[in-house]
């Protein structure tokens, strides 16, 4: 059986990206920041639009705006509006504006769905190398800032009161999230990238008794979701990105059932 190159690239690219999303996604889960990830991804679409408009590449624009959005949104504290709502407002404005700008550009009009739901089968060799490099750098960087991040996640206000938080680690975490979002745009799109950040960690939770085990399981389950989703996509001729997300969702359902049985 011959497997086409583009399938290899898609499977490897999506698998590596999802694996890199796992450990960072654990912190998004533990710190209840799913909505921040969502809004950063939405702003990423605007970044892609601006990047294309300015003639640089979409990825650079996405990464720049996603990082800026992540840094600004987590610092926003207005007492009259809940932080989550504020972040949601900014993110959706970004999504709306990004979509409008993209749809006004004739050259990319046909690719609109690709920006929203990814176009993993179109990954080039350069894309794959970039994703692999980013995945490895993100995983290593996560390992470096693991302990201070875990202290903040476990201790919350305690860590802050005792001066045990690291501003560098917090900023690093946000930048890593934004970078994953930017590279995920190509794979599963602006609307689904957060799924790769939160579903594998959630699926990993019932399988783990330590934070480290949960991070490893999340990486593994993310990586498995990619070939599973691609296979499903081939079998029923459905879009690849959404199939990968559904595969992750399937693993989450299985591990939840396991969790329920194991509890008894």
């Amino acid at each position: 059986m011959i497997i086409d190159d583009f399938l290899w690239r898609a499977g490897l690219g999506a698998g590596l990206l999802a694996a890199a999303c796992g450990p960072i996604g654990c912190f998004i889960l533990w710190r209840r920041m799913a909505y921040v990830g969502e809004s950063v991804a939405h702003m990423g679409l605007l970044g892609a639009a601006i990047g294309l408009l300015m003639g640089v590449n979409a990825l650079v624009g996405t990464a720049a705006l996603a990082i800026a959005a992540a840094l600004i949104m987590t610092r926003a504290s207005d007492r009259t509006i809940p932080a989550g709502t504020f972040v949601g407002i900014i993110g959706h404005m970004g999504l709306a504006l990004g979509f409008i700008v993209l749809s006004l550009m004739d050259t990319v009009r046909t690719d609109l769905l690709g920006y929203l739901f990814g176009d993993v089968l179109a990954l080039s060799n350069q894309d794959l190398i970039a994703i692999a490099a980013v995945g490895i750098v993100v995983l290593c960087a996560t390992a470096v800032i693991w302990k201070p991040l875990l202290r903040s996640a476990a201790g919350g206000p305690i860590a802050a009161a005792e001066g045990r938080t690291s501003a560098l680690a917090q900023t690093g975490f946000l930048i890593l999230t934004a970078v994953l979002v930017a590279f995920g745009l190509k794979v599963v799109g602006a609307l689904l990238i957060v799924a790769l950040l939160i579903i594998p960690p959630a699926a990993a939770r019932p399988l783990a008794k330590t934070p480290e085990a949960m991070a490893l399981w999340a990486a593994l389950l993310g990586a498995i979701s990619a070939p599973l989703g691609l296979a499903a996509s081939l079998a029923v001729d459905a879009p690849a990105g959404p199939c990968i997300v559904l595969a992750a969702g399937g693993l989450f359902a299985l591990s939840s059932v396991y969790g329920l049985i194991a509890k008894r």
Partner: protein
Amino acid sequence: MTEPLITAHHLTLAAGCLTILNDVSLAIHPGEIVTLIGPNGSGKTTLLKALLGLVRVKGDITRRPGLKVGYVPQQFTPDPSLPMTVHRFLDLFAGHQAGWAALKRVGIADAHDRQLSALSGGEIARVLLARAVAGKPDLLVLDEPLAGVDVAGEAALYHLIAELRDELNCGILLVSHDLHVVMGKSDRVICLNHHICCEGDAHDVRRDPAFIELFGARGELALYPHHHDHAHSLAGETLHDH
């Protein structure tokens, strides 16, 4: 007198037209237990957070250089999505051996292998105290640390806090509603109602008109001599020592 651990001068915080802290000054020295009392909404927790640097206020706060703080917050709900055992939690902040020793010292070593999110409120209170003392702090800040601990356990735990002060020679700043148990162990009581109404040792504060005005009959009741004919260990068994 020794150099204070932390000194606050003229702390003021206003939110809109509401004054939360009004010109509050205090200092805490090594080896003393200072208890902060005051009605709900009197600014106790805000003052604590200001001293810890969690809330920005007007005024000066000076810490002794290199001051190590141990903090037990009023509320702490471990997130069930984070798998973490009690021992790992202490390990993360204080290291393996210190964490283990502190768990034994606070009498909750049995729980070392359990998940944080599976503990009861009283168990959490003890784990948090163990975590705070494991790092051998110079200043222990306890914000109503005994929520969820039953009355018998409470007395034993306050006794333990006083012992820990002697062992670590640390200063302790304690916020509490439980006037009757706290006061016997306090070196100094500060009565707060946005400003410092009165302060001094427990007996002086009791006679202070400002205290009586704030707490009224409750204050009298709070200082009613309270003699136990027996004590409880932290595990709950009765100790007959008199």
